[in-house]
């Protein structure tokens, strides 16, 4: 508003400057009352004409174009949003299937591992049982052999002792006393 007031001040200055010219020419043409009726009539005519042209033709046309553009923009935005939602959904399904596949793979691996572990365990226990049976058999065989050997030793020892005695005294030894002596000696050792 300040600029408006500033502009009014030179306006009145200029009137003072133009005063002599006004006196010579019979005053400002703006103050000539005889022109007022024609000015008023033509102003009203032209202003109403412009108002009619603006309100019926120009403004609706511009408004239409602006609205159309806004609609187009809104439409495109809606479309873009829709596409984005679709893309999001696709990404979601992709991720879901990916995680599903991963879980499936883990399951399969775990199953295989469990199966292999069970099999190994079974095999091991089977082998252990087999081995322990074999060990037992071997042990019983060894024990049997030991018993055989021990009984063999006694006869051999009796024979050797009898032969030694016969050689020493030049007469056959009493078999019963030799065998009882050997068996008692063997008994003392064990």
């Amino acid at each position, binding site marked *: 508003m300040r600029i408006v007031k500033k502009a009014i001040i030179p306006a009145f200055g200029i009137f003072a400057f133009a005063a002599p010219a006004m006196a010579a020419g019979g005053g400002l043409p703006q103050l000539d009352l005889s022109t007022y009726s024609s000015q008023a009539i033509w*102003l009203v005519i032209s202003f109403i004409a412009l108002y009619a*042209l603006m309100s019926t033709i120009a403004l609706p046309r511009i408004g239409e174009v602006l609205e159309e553009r806004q609609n187009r923009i809104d439409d495109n935005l809606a479309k873009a949003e829709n596409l984005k939602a679709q893309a999001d959904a696709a990404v979601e399904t992709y991720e879901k299937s990916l995680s599903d596949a991963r879980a499936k793979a883990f399951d399969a691996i775990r199953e295989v591992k469990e199966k292999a572990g069970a099999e190994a365990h079974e095999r091991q226990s089977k082998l252990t049982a087999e081995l322990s049976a074999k060990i037992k058999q071997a042990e019983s065989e060894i024990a049997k052999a030991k018993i055989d050997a021990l009984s063999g030793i006694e006869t051999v020892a009796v024979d050797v002792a009898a032969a030694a005695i016969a050689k020493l005294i030049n007469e056959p030894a009493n078999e019963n006393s030799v065998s009882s002596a050997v068996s008692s000696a063997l008994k003392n050792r064990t």
Partner: protein
Amino acid sequence: MANPIEQFTVRPLIEINLGGLDATFTNASAFMLLTVASVTMFLALSMRGRALVPGRWQSMAELSYEFIAGLLRDNVGSEGRRFFPFVFTLFMFILFANMLGLMPYSFTITSHIIVTFILAMVVFIGVTIVGILRHGVKFFSYFVPSGVPMAVLPLMIPIEIISYLSRPISLSVRLFANMTAGHIMMKVFAGFVIPLGIFGGWAPFGVDVLLVGFEFLVAFLQAYVFTVLTCLYLHDAIHLH
């Protein structure tokens, strides 16, 4: 030296008499019709393409539309939409009248007090009618400022009424005085160019070049001021304070 106020002379072109009323078609009338034609041509031709992506001319047309729509929205609010065609017409009429007046040898219709006064009175009476239609008798409470002690009301109410009644005068004189003063100044300085000769004449010529630029600013600014004040008056009538 040429008479600096000769440019404002109204010259009759076709004598018309409507039952004793002088309706002579003058150079002023011709420029009024030219203003109407220019505004219409500008908007109609630039919007002819109805392009989705506007070109330069269409951008200007849309810009003027959105400029006034924004002005009305900011100053009056959503109730102002109904007055959009009127305010737009007012702005374009004054703007084009001011701009056409800057053409050499042309006539500036807004440099005539009767023209600006009628425009201001249309706004003044229109705004008052809008206010009364909207608020009835309550509209006159506009002259009673709120939050003022009772003692000063006898002083304040006449002041408010006088300031309200002086609106059309300030509105019309502002536009008329600005246009008249600017054109007289340009003419005065132009009148010095030839008499001061080939050496001295450059100084007023340079001043005139600056003045022309300044006058374009004033031409736009005064159209804008007239429109903004109309919007503010509308706001007062619709919202009361």
